[in-house]
Each structure stands twice: as structure tokens, then as C-alpha cells.
């Protein structure tokens, strides 16, 4: 029997219709005959109840539209006219048949996150299929052979950030031997968490690569020198810069809104038309569909019981709060303690700048106290202790894993007290949130599978080790210091057990996701290690996971922070001698297109229109390469005109070293009798010079750039420079001095994302004030 379901919910359609009348925002609303569809919907629901084994059909129409979350209209992608994408529900044993109608003017794809399926249905463009071309339809068809809470999202570019995420629920059959009375029969609601930014995500990605501090300004987390002094942490800040670190934060991007099922605030008064009343229990199926945000989950009605993670059952565990990593899912049971009261279920970003709420129950709203602001300078101090001078991390003898020791607790006032209080430095538990306070925070060691999850013992084991690497300054994220395009596929054999040991040597946490398989996370629960497909690894942690290689194909294993993934933080597992994927007719072309993602160049440019001249720069850079042009154009010949271009390649994990080839052109009319010699007594040819140079740039402690170059006429120039010294929240200082006896010092006040005012003094051009535009 085949059933067709068109997931176009009537009530939402009506609301959209309303919006359309008023604002004419939905562009191409056609081909929707919805009285028909409601009929089919009812029929199909009925059919689903009596017959579990069947093909369930969904039509998904992917369209571009404008949305308005903040008061400003912005481009978004909607599926069946909604954000999030419609919830897709199946029963284990069904066959899914999903038609994706791409009505965009760009390519797309859909990945079924956490699902066991044939590789060609996995939805990774240029790896498991070619992208779905504009105005074509692609059919995904696969059997549903598991149950649990999952989600789905676009795997193309940055589409996930602007609306392409949705709930994907596979229900357990009632005759399943693992069916849990009191859990699997509770009223349940799927909730997908996400974030919204008014900035174009491509711009966000570009700004991250340019080490922008605009997001920190928006979050009030710049951690400048004056703020450090005020907090009594001047030494901490100094040491931090000495170790060449930018201000630390737990998240990279500032978001305007946090959404739960597409809304910042939701009243949940009924489930399946049944009113929620005091004494009830509700199962929340939470997926983190955020592109780069982790969320703290807390509840006003008492403790929460975690019953599943990444779609796999776990023994119920009671917690006060948990942090859900990007792309993880958790099933949580909450109780409604009293009648006539709605209890707040709160999702707060890890940096605590924003949140979204679900009010569960009907009546007066019982709030949950918000998470207090982070003690950033405590975090900075902690990072100073952990960071060695060469950029490696030092765990000081604590072997850390499974989120049990959370270095970030030093920043959490609710665990470690107010900013003023001093921590006991010798306490072995000083990073263990659960030992330090009454608040129970979930960690991976607390997850236990209700059934044995051990792997076939007769199979051989292949062991792989990875280090997660990267640096914040250039926003390069990699594994073993190689990005996807720089590494070969990792070959595994069908039938063998694969054990992966991952160490995070970078300064950010990374949610690592494996496609097509669940792995056991070795967490001290023996044969009952929990099954997951995401593992969040904090800096300095080592985690071990293992799985049985049982489905052929090319499977992506990557960091699920969208901007890290697009920077190339991943690998591809591939089975030896596997069958050719019919959806990849030209594997070489596909691979080239896949590699293009992390090879992309990012533009950065800036120009200062000042009273004494016109200063600016233009930079193109990617993972390894940098092309950089600077110019200083005076208003008259005396001040001179000069440009410098450097083409270089970054070397090493921390990318402090960059050898380059330079091109120089300058003209400056010297006054009579004026003669310019450099510190090495070489005569400068500044009045009219065209030079090629060879040089190196190196980032010194305090993040001062040391540039030494030799020009083809034998002249040598050594230069020290630092821009963007954070003096106050919006005030930056810059200086430059070189052996041509040139120097510059200046201040910049940041007005907006692309605008600032400057005041500077330059040895060639004198003092000036100006307006800076940057992109």
C-alpha cells in the first residue's frame, strides 16, 4: 500500500495566506490545492494508524522568500512555505519516499541526519549524489530501519543557516522489544532549535575568516584592555596577547534571534488536541539545528529526565540542565507540576546572549531564571594556563574526556560564584561542574544504553587517530592540520570494526558527526556504551568511539559547526572495492567540486578617507594562501603615493609564518637636499621605485607582525606592525615602524560593522583624521 502525505499543514497555510495578503512576501505560491491535501492528510493519518508497513510519501517544495524576524526583511529558504522545514514522521518499518522539488535558482540537497540508509540517499552533494539542480526534482527513497528523534537539513553551502532544517521523527513500533512504557507512550513534541542572523551567512563566513570582532562588540564580549583593567585582569589580558590569542569566547557568531520550531516564544497548551494539565508528562524531542550555536536547556518545572540521545535510547537520567551540541538530539521528559501554570522550557545560547522559550501548560507562566553572564576574563586566564607558547595546549596532567571536566566552569557564575570570588587552585574537581555545585549538568559519562551495544568480536579492528586542529586568528579548522581538499579518503573494509581516537588540540569545541553509522562512545559503561552519531569534543579532550563498518559508501565525518565544516574540517570514510555510486557519474569532477568548498577565497578590504591621504588595503585569502595589497595615497606629491602587494602562503598549524613575494611601487617627491637612508645606510629609492621583493612575515608575541623583505636592488626592510589593539570596546589602536625610518600610529573608533572614524599620524603624510569603510 502506498500513502501520499503532503506536509502542508492547513493552519500554517492560512497564516501564510494572511501574511501574503498584507505584505505580498511569498512570491511563488502556486500549485497548492490544499482542500485536496487536507483530505489526503486525514486519510493518510488514518491509514498510518492501522498499517505500519508502508511507503510514506512527502513532497518538499524548496523556495526562496523573504522573512522578517527582527523588523528587517531578509532572504531565506523555506520548504513548503515554512521555517523550519516540515516535520517528517515515520514508523520504523516504513519506506520513505521524499520528493524534493528545487524551485530555487541555486543548487540544493537534503541530508537525513543520523539515518542508516544506502549511501546514495545520504544527501551530501558531490559526495553521495550530484547537487539537485535548480528547478528539478530529486527523489530520496529508503527504508526506515531504526527509530528515534533525528532531523534533516541542507548539506549545500550555508543554506542550513537560512531555514533549511527540520524535525525527522521515526516512531518505535508498539511491538518493539525495546518499547518503554511510561516513555514511548508519552505525548511528545518535536522541537528543532536554530538561530537567525540578519546578516547574509556568506558574509558571516567571510567576516569570521577575517577575524572580525564585530560579533564580540554585538555580544559585549570584546575583552579590551580597558575592560580588563576594570575587572582587575590587566595581567591576564597582557599574557593572553603575549601568547598570541584573540579574546576568547565560547561561540563565534552573534545571532539576532534564537528559535524553537521557528519562533522565539511558543505557548504549548495542547498536544494532539489534548490539554496539558498538572501532573502530566511530556516528551520533548529536541534537535539542535543551529548552524553554530550550542544551547543550554533548562526547565522551570523541576528536573528533566533524559531518555534518548541522537535517536538512541538511554537509561533515564535526571538532570537540572544540559548543553546540546550543534546537531545533537536529546529526548527529554518533563513533568508539569501544577494546573493553570505554564512552565518555561528555556534554550539559551552557550554564550548566554540570547534565548528562546517554550511555555508548556496553560495559565500563568512560571519563568526559569536566565543563565548569568559569563566571566570572560576567568576564561581568558584559564586559556592562558592551558596554552603553551608554541600554540599547543597543555592539559596539565588532567586527561579529559566526555565533557566531564569542563574548563568553561570557571566562567559560569552559577557554578563557581561571582566574578570576585577566587577558586581553589588545588581542588582536583575544580573543573567538574557536578562536584562543584548542586546543579546536575549532563555529561557523556552519564549516558548508558539500555541494551548491549558491543561490536562483533570476531571482526578485526582498525584504529585511527585524529587531532582536531585549527586557529581562531585565521579561522582555519582542520584535522591533523589538513582540510578536506588536502586529505585523501580514508579507506575502511566492510565488516571490520573501526575505532577512532580523537584529541582536540584546538581552542574551540567541535561536534564531530559521522554519516550513516552510529558509533559507540566509550564512556565507562562497558557493554552498555551509548550509541551516538555526534560527539562534542572540548579543547584538550580525548574521546574514543567505535563502530562496525556495515554499509558501503563514501561517508562524511566532519565538524557540524557549519562554518568549520565549510572551512574544511572533515574527512571522508570510503569502503575498499565498493560499488560505484550511480549518482556520481564523474567522480573526478565531483571531488573537485567538493574540494572547492574549503579552497574558497575570502575578500577583505578597507579604505580610510583621511585629511592627510587615502589609506587602504585589499586582501584575498583562503586556508593557506594570501594575496594582500596595501596603498597609501597622499593628496600631493610631497606626501607621495605607494602600493605594496604581497602574495604569500601560511605555514604551520598556527599559521604564524608566511613567506611571500612582494611588488612595490612608490613615488614621493623629496624636498631639495632631503636624502633618505635606511637604518642599514642603504639609500632609499622612494621617490620613484618599482621593486620586487622576497620576504617573510611572522606573528610575534603580542600579535605584532614582523615583516622582513629584501628588494631586488638589495635594499632590506624590516617592519613591525600591529593593527586592532583593543583599547576599549569600540576603540582600536594601530602602530607601524620600519627600518626605512617610517612610522605610523593611530586610533580607530568602530561605529558600525563597516564603518569607523580614525585619527593617525604618519611619518610621510603627517597627522590626519578620516572615515574608514571596511568590508
Amino acid at each position, binding site marked *: 500500500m502506498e500513502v501520499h502525505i503532503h506536509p502542508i499543514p492547513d493552519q500554517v497555510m492560512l497564516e501564510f495566506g494572511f501574511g501574503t495578503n498584507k505584505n505580498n512576501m511569498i512570491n511563488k505560491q502556486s500549485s497548492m490545492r490544499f482542500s485536496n491535501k487536507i483530505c489526503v492528510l486525514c486519510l493518510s493519518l488514518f491509514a498510518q494508524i492501522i498499517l505500519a508497513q508502508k511507503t510514506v510519501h512527502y513532497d518538499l517544495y524548496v523556495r526562496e522568500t523573504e522573512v522578517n524576524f527582527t523588523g528587517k526583511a531578509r532572504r531565506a529558504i523555506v520548504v513548503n512555505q515554512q521555517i523550519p522545514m516540515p516535520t517528517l514522521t515515520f514508523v520504523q518499518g516504513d519506506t520513505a519516499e521524499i520528493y524534493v522539488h528545487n524551485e530555487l535558482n541555486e543548487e540544493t540537497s537534503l541530508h537525513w541526519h543520523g539515518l542508516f540508509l544506502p549511501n546514495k540517499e545520504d544527501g551530501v552533494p558531490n559526495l553521495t549524489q550530484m547537487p539537485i539542480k535548480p528547478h528539478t526534482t530529486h527523489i530520496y527513497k529508503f527504508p526506515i530501519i531504526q527509530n528515534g528523534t533525528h532531523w534533516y537539513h541542507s548539506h549545500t553551502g550555508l543554506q542550513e543557516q537560512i531555514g533549511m532544517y527540520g524535525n525527522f521523527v521515526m516512531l518505535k513500533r508498539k511491538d518493539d522489544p525495546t518499547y518503554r512504557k511510561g516513555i514511548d507512550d508519552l505525548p511528545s513534541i518535536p522541537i528543532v532549535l536554530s538561530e537567525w542572523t540578519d546578516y547574509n551567512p556568506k558574509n558571516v563566513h567571510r567576516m569570521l575568516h577575517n577575524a572580525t570582532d564585530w560579533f564580540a562588540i554585538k555580544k559585549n564580549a570584546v575583552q579590551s584592555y580597558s575592560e580588563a583593567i576594570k575587572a582587575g585582569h590587566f595581567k591576564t589580558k597582557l599574557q593572553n596577547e603575549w601568547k598570541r590569542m584573540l579574546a576568547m569566547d565560547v561561540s563565534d557568531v552573534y545571532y539576532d534571534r534564537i528559535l524553537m520550531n521557528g*519562533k522565539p516564544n511558543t505557548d504549548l497548551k495542547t498536544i494532539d488536541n489534548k490539554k496539558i494539565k498538572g501532573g502530566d*508528562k511530556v516528551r520533548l524531542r529536541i534537535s539542535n539545528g543551529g548552524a553554530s550555536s550550542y544551547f543550554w536547556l533548562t526547565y522551570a518545572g523541576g528536573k528533566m529526565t533524559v531518555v534518548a540521545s541522537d535517536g538512541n535510547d538511554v537509561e533515564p537520567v535526571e538532570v537540572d540542565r544540559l548543553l546540546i551540541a550543534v546537531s545533537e538530539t536529546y529526548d527529554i521528559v518533563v513533568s508539569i507540576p501544577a494546573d493553570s501554570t505554564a512552565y518555561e522550557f528555556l534554550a539559551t545560547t552557550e554564550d548566554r546572549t540570547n534565548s528562546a522559550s517554550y511555555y508548556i501548560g496553560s495559565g500563568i507562566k512560571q519563568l526559569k531564571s536566565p543563565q548569568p553572564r559569563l566571566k570572560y576574563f576567568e576564561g581568558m586566564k584559564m586559556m592562558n594556563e592551558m596554552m603553551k607558547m608554541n600554540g599547543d595546549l597543555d592539559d596539565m596532567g588532567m586527561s579529559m574526556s566526555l565533557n566531564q571536566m569542563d574548563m568553561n566552569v570557571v566562567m559560569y557564575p552559577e557554578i563557581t560564584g561571582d566574578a570576585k570570588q577566587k577558586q581553589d587552585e588545588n581542588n582536583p574537581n575544580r573543573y567538574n561542574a557536578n562536584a562543584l555545585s548542586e546543579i546536575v549538568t549532563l555529561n557523556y559519562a552519564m549516558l548508558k544504553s539500555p541494551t548491549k551495544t558491543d561490536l562483533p568480536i570476531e571482526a578485526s579492528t582498525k584504529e585511527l587517530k585524529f587531532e582536531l586542529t585549527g586557529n581562531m586568528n585565521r579561522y582555519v579548522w582542520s584535522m591533523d592540520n589538513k582540510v578536506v581538499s588536502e586529505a585523501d579518503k580514508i579507506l575502511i573494509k566492510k565488516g571490520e570494526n573501526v575505532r577512532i581516537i580523537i584529541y582536540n588540540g584546538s581552542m574551540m569545541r567541535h561536534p564531530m558527526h559521522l554519516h550513516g553509522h552510529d558509533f559507540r562512545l566509550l564512556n565507562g559503561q562497558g557493554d552498555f556504551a551509548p550509541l551516538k552519531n555526534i560527539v562534542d569534543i572540548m579543547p584538550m579532550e580525548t574521546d574514543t568511539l567505535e563502530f562496525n563498518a556495515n554499509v558501503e559508501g563514501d561517508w562524511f565525518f566532519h565538524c557540524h559547526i557549519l562554518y568549520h565544516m565549510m572551512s574544511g574540517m572533515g574527512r571522508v570514510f570510503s569502503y575498499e572495492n565498493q560499488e560505484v555510486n550511480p549518482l556520481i557519474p564523474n567522480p573526478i569532477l565531483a571531488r573537485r567540486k567538493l574540494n572547492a568548498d574549503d579552497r574558497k577565497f575570502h575578500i577583505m578590504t578597507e579604505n580610510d578617507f583621511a585629511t592627510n591621504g587615502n589609506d587602504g588595503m585589499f586582501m584575498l585569502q583562503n586556508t593557506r594562501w594570501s594575496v594582500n595589497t596595501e596603498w597609501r595615497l597622499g593628496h600631493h606629491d610631497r606626501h607621495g603615493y605607494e602600493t605594496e602587494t604581497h602574495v604569500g602562503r601560511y605555514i604551520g598549524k598556527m599559521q604564524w609564518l608566511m613567506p611571500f613575494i612582494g611588488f612595490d611601487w612608490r613615488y614621493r617627491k623629496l624636498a631639495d637636499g632631503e636624502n633618505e637612508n635606511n637604518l642599514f645606510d642603504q639609500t632609499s629609492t622612494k621617490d620613484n621605485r618599482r621593486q620586487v621583493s622576497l620576504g617573510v612575515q611572522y606573528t610575534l608575541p603580542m600579535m605584532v607582525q614582523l615583516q622582513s623583505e629584501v628588494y631586488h636592488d638589495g635594499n632590506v626592510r624590516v617592519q613591525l606592525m600591529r593593527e586592532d589593539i583593543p583599547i576599549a570596546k569600540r576603540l582600536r589602536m594601530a602602530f607601524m615602524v620600519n627600518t626605512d625610518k617610517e612610522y605610523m600610529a593611530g586610533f580607530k573608533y568602530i561605529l558600525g560593522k563597516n564603518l569607523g572614524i580614525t585619527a593617525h599620524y604618519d611619518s610621510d603624510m603627517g597627522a590626519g583624521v578620516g572615515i574608514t569603510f571596511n568590508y
Partner: protein
Amino acid sequence: MNILSILSKIGMVSVMMIYVSCSPKLNPTLVENVTIYGNCSMCKSKIEAAGGLSKFAKVSWNEKTKIATLTYDKSKTNRDQILKKIALAGYDSDAYLAPDDTYANLAPCCQYQRVNKVAIKEKSTDGLIVDINYELDSNSEISDKQDSIKSETLVVNQNQTASPKVDIIEPGIALPDPIAEPITEAPKTNSGTSIGKNITKSTTPNRSTSTAPDKAKNPSPKSSTSKSKTTTPAVKSISQLKPVFDNYFALKDALVKTDATSASAKARTLLAAIKAIKMSDLNTEEHTVWMNVNKKLLAETELIIGYKDVKKQRVSFITLSKHMYNLLKSSNYESDVYYQFCPMANDGKGANWLSKEKAVKNPYYGNEMLTCGKVVEVIK
């Protein structure tokens, strides 16, 4: 074009700019009256500060009527937002209940009666639903101080914070049943149910649906007999109760160090000190309180002596501290004593203790959270 005409144009532009910058004030402002629960002038300032939003929203709260007048620019904010902010500062309204921990951290004088709190349904194991008198203790902190003589009530009141949490017994959840039973009602497969609908521009202001809760269902809060403070600052000689207090402080220090053996030993000397008190030597005021607390002090001290587990000792210490506080209030001590409070102790219900030092050293957690807590009262 001469300079004059340019100047006049600049003038015109600046006049227009002034006009533009004035225009926000022309935005329609709304004035509304809402009930916000609170007690005192301290509450007033906190409520008004929490609800205000620079020049866009102003809150003026009347201590007597509990009515707040909200004046706000409806293009910038709304009633719901203002009430939420006030609730997050600790004050209930008819739309929002303050977070329990925020309420518990209000100064004792601010801990108003939470009439909008609905009784928690306790599900006992046999499925009976019992309403628990929620407000049982809501005034214990205040009454503690107001009538220290009536310490009898304190025996009932284990909790010092005003928001006691009633644990809900949850049948089923902790015991997953591996045997699958056929269930007649299938979990509904509401395919395509969508909640997201934020795609429209018509963001209607989020009006709260302030359903006035059924107050009749609320158990009537215990009326606190308001009695003025009885402590008289008369000149007294050093009380003979001093050894009792000294030994109590020693016991507290042992608990700060999380040292069960030492705590047990200190409790033994405390017991001796308590037994050594001759009632006839106490002044009238001390005498009255002593009659009341004597037996309880002995009982808790004996428990502490017996316990090997510091956790259990700490539980007894909560009650002991409470009685000791009453005793100290009736008596006098050579130096100032600080009555301190940790909101997290006693399973999050909070607990007090007495200390000679102002700096917080938490006897309920020791090193785990040494400095958690605050001074709630200085007993001169």
C-alpha cells in the same frame, strides 16, 4: 550661490533634523495598570528599575495597592515584555511567576506572598492526587525574625527559604518496562505539523493571555502574626550562654572543613556545654527561649555526635542553626555575629548558619563551594 543661502539651507536641514529627533516622543504611548506582587519600598525600587526601559517604558508601583502603572512606547516594547522583566527580577504578576531561585534570593523583607502560585500536584504511588499546601512556609523567614519567641513553629519549618520545593514522585519513568504491552492508542503521527510561521511581516505584539488563576484553589497562606522585635538593646553582662555559642562555632568550623570526626567531637563538647547551663542563671528573655529550644538543641547535637557521614551532620546542623539563631537573638554575644544564608544548601531550599566572621565560609559545602552564600543579618 552665495554663502548666505548655503547657511540658510544648513539651517533648514538642522531644523528638520531636530524635528526628526523629536519624533519618537510623538509615538503613541500606552498607559496600563497591572497588579504586581511585592511588599515594601525596596520592592518598589526593584520593580520600577526592572520594568523601565530608558525613555521608552516607565513603571510606577504603588506599595499599598500593588498596582503598577506602565507607561510605554508601544512601538518599542509591550506589556508582556515589561512584566517578564519584572518577574525575572523576582516579582510575580498575573502573567508571569518569578523564577523560584530569584524569589528565594530576594531580601527577607521583600518575600511577599505568592498568591498566584498554584499548588503542586503530588502524585502518590497509588495514583492519588494530593494538593500540597504550597504556601506553608512562605513567611517563615519573616516570622522567624518577627516573633523569635514563637519558635515552636520552626520545628515544622525545616525550610528557611520561602519557596519549598515539593518533590514529585514519578512512577514509571525510572523503571523502564522491557515487556512491551500492546497499547490501543497509537502515538499520533501528525505528519507535517508545523509550528514555524514566522515568515510573515505581521508580527502582532505578543499580548500575554493573563488568565487570572483560580485563587479559590489556592490554600490560604498562613497569616503571620506580626509582632514587633523583642530584642532590647539593654546593657547586659556577658551571658553564661557563651560556651554554647563558642562550641557551636567550633562545630561549624569543623563542618566547613568537611571533617566528620572533628565535627562529632565538637558536637560532644557542645552537648556538655548545653547540659551545663543552669536555667536559673539566665535572664528572663533567654530563659523563655531556652525553655523552648533546649531539648531540640540537645536532640540535634546528639544526632551530629552519632553520624559518621558529614552529609547527615549537615542536615542536622540546619535545624541546630535555626534554634541557635533564636537563642542568640534573645541573648547577647561578645562580638557581632553574622547570620548567613546559602540558597543552594538543603537541596536547593537554602539554609542558614551563624558565624563570627563576615566572610562567608559555607559549612554545608565546605571546599566544594566554600564561598557560596551571603550575610542576611548582623546580630549586634
